[in-house]
């Protein structure tokens, strides 16, 4: 079985898991956590393509997420456009801004690219805070309508959760397809060596830009889902810390694996909720868990699973031989 088929099977399993998950939960609050996890996972899948496969870092993805959220919020709540149109405009806005930002910044490498995207993230954050007339400033933007499909407003939280999970499935499907294609090979090639990729004829500038824009579109989709879910947004949700958190999700989950990154997103979104019980030392425990994870799982959750599987396989084989 080739890897793409295997991945499709994995996707089917993930979707089945996401479908039954709400039924296993004790209260509605956990459903909110699950929904937010799915929204985060959508961005993280895009970031995994950018960081894990193409090897380009971005510390500004919180900004794309926020741009889409605010664009959709302003268009629907202030200007009264249908939510569908507002959402579409939000996603496109993230994509167009990524295109404009990507052309000059993707010439940079490593730390410099990190700095440039960080600067972009900070500027967007400041705009959210200062353009009070448009965004409501630091106190936030209220009164965003809930998402409606074909005139039917999606009122139930469960329905919204399934919508987000469906979007996540779609986004993963596109990503898996991309990785398995000629474009995916080109991205991994430029990750390994830009010079060698150029030498075999890959237009590296174009591919870097394309994957950057795609990941921004993913972040935009997540931003729209977020805004119309909570119906309230504030700049604090889209700041630098959030961008870093996204990177941590990718790294903790496993850079080279889409499913690993998704697991990272769910794990890191849900973890603080379970640590609430420890009250004062919550943040401390959160940090400690991250450190322990990275010490024992240097290749992330996905790498850990692979290592365990390989060990079991060897043991089974050893037992068979004996």
């Amino acid at each position, binding site marked *: 079985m080739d890897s793409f088929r295997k991945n499709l099977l994995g996707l089917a399993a993930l979707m089945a898991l996401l479908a039954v998950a709400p039924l296993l939960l004790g209260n509605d609050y956990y459903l909110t956590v699950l929904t937010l996890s799915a929204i985060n996972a959508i961005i993280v899948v895009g970031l995994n393509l950018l960081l894990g496969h193409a090897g380009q870092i971005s510390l500004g993805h919180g900004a794309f997420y926020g741009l889409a959220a605010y664009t959709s919020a302003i268009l629907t709540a202030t200007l009264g456009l249908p939510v569908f149109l507002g959402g579409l405009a939000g996603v496109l806005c993230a994509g167009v801004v990524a295109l404009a930002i990507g052309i000059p910044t993707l010439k940079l490498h490593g730390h410099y690219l990190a700095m440039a995207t960080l600067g972009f993230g900070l500027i967007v954050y400041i705009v959210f805070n200062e353009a009070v007339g448009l965004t409501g400033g630091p106190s936030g933007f209220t009164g965003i309508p809930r998402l409606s499909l074909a005139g039917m407003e999606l009122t139930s939280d469960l329905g919204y959760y399934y919508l987000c999970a469906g979007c996540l499935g779609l986004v993963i499907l596109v990503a898996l397809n991309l990785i398995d294609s000629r474009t995916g090979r080109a991205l991994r090639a430029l990750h390994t060596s830009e010079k060698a990729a150029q*030498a*075999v*004829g890959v237009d590296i500038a174009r591919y870097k830009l394309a994957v950057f824009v795609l990941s921004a579109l993913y972040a935009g989709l997540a931003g729209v889902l977020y805004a119309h879910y909570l119906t309230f947004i504030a700049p604090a949700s889209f700041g630098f810390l959030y961008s870093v958190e996204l990177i941590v999700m990718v790294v903790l989950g496993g850079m080279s694996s889409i499913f690993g990154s998704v697991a990272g997103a769910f794990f890191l979104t849900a973890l603080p909720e379970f640590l609430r019980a420890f009250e004062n030392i919550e943040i401390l425990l959160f940090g400690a868990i991250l450190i322990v994870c990275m010490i024992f799982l240097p290749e992330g959750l996905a790498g850990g699973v692979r290592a365990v599987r390989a060990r079991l396989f060897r043991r089974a084989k050893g037992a068979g031989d004996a």
Partner: protein
Amino acid sequence: MLTLKNVDVHYGRIQAAKRVSLHVDPGEIVALIGGNGAGKTTLLCTISGLIRPSTGSVTFAGADITRHSPERIVAQGLSHVPEGRLVFAPLSVADNLLLGSYSRHKFGQGQAIEADISAIYDMFPVLGERRNQPAGTLSGGEQQMLSIGRALMAKPRLLLLDEPSMGLAPNITRDIFRHVVSLRESLGLTVLLVEQNARSALKIADRGYVLETGRVILQGQAAELLANRDVQRAYLGRDLDA
């Protein structure tokens, strides 16, 4: 087939190639030799478009390619085997070869590409045995074969080879060089070869250029260069005064 005219290359304020002119005729193997920092790799990168020259021109098969992008140059039939091999280490051998055919991708090319990959496996059987292995796990010599195979996948007319002997045992180097010669016979390939290992390079080459601090200081038939006293002293490790 390939002509460089008065090429100057600068890295910031440092000049790495000074007024270099050279030419390669169809079917030739031409060696470019010289010590460390002579500008050999710089020249190859200039030809394949990875570096832009500050002045001068590069013509390939009658067309001026001085300002062309690297991907366009590859598509025109000029492949570069970079220094240090630069195989895509985490990717499988098969994926590395597929990436080599990147510039040829068109609808319906799939079968031709498959056939070319198996031709590469025939040429380098060890690559066929290891097709699903990550390229980074190959030995140095195997990686060099893969790097050459990857370049061949673009169906080049001219192959630029940058130090294929780097870090390889002498018998492996001989093996690689034998392959280079047979490529010319079987595919009619023209080769521009950069080497520090001047003796081996000149043995298989028709003509040679000697580069020193960015200038061509000597050129001629390979046999003449091999016999030249200055070349022998400087690059062939023979101390004539002793």
